[in-house]
């Protein structure tokens, strides 16, 4: 702090607001010009270096798979379910597990079959229908030669039916809304998909789905769901569950490119169809024909 008194008499004392040096030397000094030039060259160099760095970074991020001549904007896939045609054989569940490498454990399913049993009303109660029992033992999948366990004695049953379940392909999908990293999205061809590279496995979407259509894959630790066999439909094949369904309970088609005797067009021409849980406002695209009031 005692440097001020020791300063030489000819020097300008270092004040808080010294006069600008360039202002004293005129508008364009040699030093100023050199500075500007160096800055400009440096800027250009940094920009090209940044471009190169960006390319290098994105090379690591990008997946190198080339498109296969399939344009997602020219298709709109949809599945519809005819409950009256489902015989509950479980072939679709088995095929889905095989095709998509879904873990064997009886609680990982991309699609499954629910069995609804409506009991007879209690005698004298005056009700039309009794209690409803819903189960899905091993997702409705039965090994050849085995039958599903009978939960309700035969004489107590009023009627029963099977309902196949899968991703409802919501237009306002809650799963896509809650994903914190944007890994779940609505693809333009009508499928709700998960980007397996960007999914962080937080599980929000699994909680958000009101239809219980998602699960956490224990191997990859990412959320998984029905993709409508995206690897098959983009190659002109039907989803595995539709392929094996013996009763044509699952109807599948491309709404933008209807074929001759299009099954999905026929379905909407001939059947009354309704979504599951319409009160939630998720606007499911998958519609069911022949639903009973008990189905959720």
């Amino acid at each position, binding site marked *: 702090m005692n440097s001020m008194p020791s300063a030489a008499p000819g020097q300008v004392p270092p004040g808080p607001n010294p006069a600008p040096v360039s202002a004293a030397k005129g508008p364009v000094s040699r030093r100023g010009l050199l500075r500007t030039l160096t800055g400009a060259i440096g800027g250009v160099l940094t920009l090209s270096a940044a471009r190169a760095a960006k390319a290098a970074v994105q090379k690591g991020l990008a997946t190198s798979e080339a498109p296969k001549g*399939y344009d997602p904007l020219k298709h709109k896939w949809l599945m519809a379910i005819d409950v009256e045609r489902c015989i509950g054989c*479980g072939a679709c569940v088995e095929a889905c597990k095989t095709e998509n490498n879904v873990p064997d454990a009886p609680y990982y399913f991309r699609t499954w079959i629910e069995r609804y049993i409506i009991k007879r009303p209690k005698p004298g109660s005056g009700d039309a229908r009794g209690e409803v029992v819903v189960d899905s033992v091993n997702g409705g999948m039965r090994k050849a030669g085995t039958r599903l366990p009978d939960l309700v004695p035969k004489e107590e049953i009023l*009627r029963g039916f099977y309902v196949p379940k899968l991703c409802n392909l919501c237009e306002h999908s809650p799963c896509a809304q809650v994903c914190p990293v944007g890994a779940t999205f609505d693809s*333009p061809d009508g499928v709700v998909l998960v*980007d397996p590279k*960007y999914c962080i496995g937080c599980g929000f979407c699994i909680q958000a789905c009101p239809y219980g259509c998602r699960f956490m894959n224990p191997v990859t630790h990412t959320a998984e769901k029905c993709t409508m066999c995206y690897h098959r439909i983009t190659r002109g094949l039907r989803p595995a569950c539709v392929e094996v369904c013996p009763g044509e309970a699952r109807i599948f088609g491309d709404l933008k490119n209807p074929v001759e005797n299009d099954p999905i067009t026929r379905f909407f021409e001939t059947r009354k169809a309704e979504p599951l849980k319409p009160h939630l406002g998720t606007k499911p695209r998958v519609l069911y024909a022949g639903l009973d009031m008990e189905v959720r």
Partner: protein
Amino acid sequence: MRIPPQIFRLVLLTVGIVTSYSAARYFLTPPSFGQYGWFRGDALHLLQDRPRKYAGRKACDECHSEQVQKLAKAEHKTVSCESCHGVGLAHVDDPGVTLGRPTDGLCTRCHERDVARPVWLHQINPKNHYNGQHCVECHVPHQPNEVP
């Protein structure tokens, strides 16, 4: 007029944050983001490239068109080849790989009596429908209405 130092520091901080955000965004946004919507377009290709296992009825038709055409006229016309014969892509790629033989259990998987099944389906009770015989002794799987 001088900028007060506390304001200057705030401006500096803001510029720093905005710059680092823009730099991160510039570098880390995947190139295919926004190609089809608010997601990474490459994810579609990633999902397309997953391996298949079921070949589809068209692939069966290429070699076994006789059986496929006969089946298309019979009661079982809605049943796909791979519903009973199992996954077939390995067999399509290499005909040396044989498919498993369908068993009686495959018949009862669909035709065993079950209260939850629709009434249009032919259902039997395996205990009294046949007496230790195999289904194919009386029924032809491809033409269920014919007798072998």
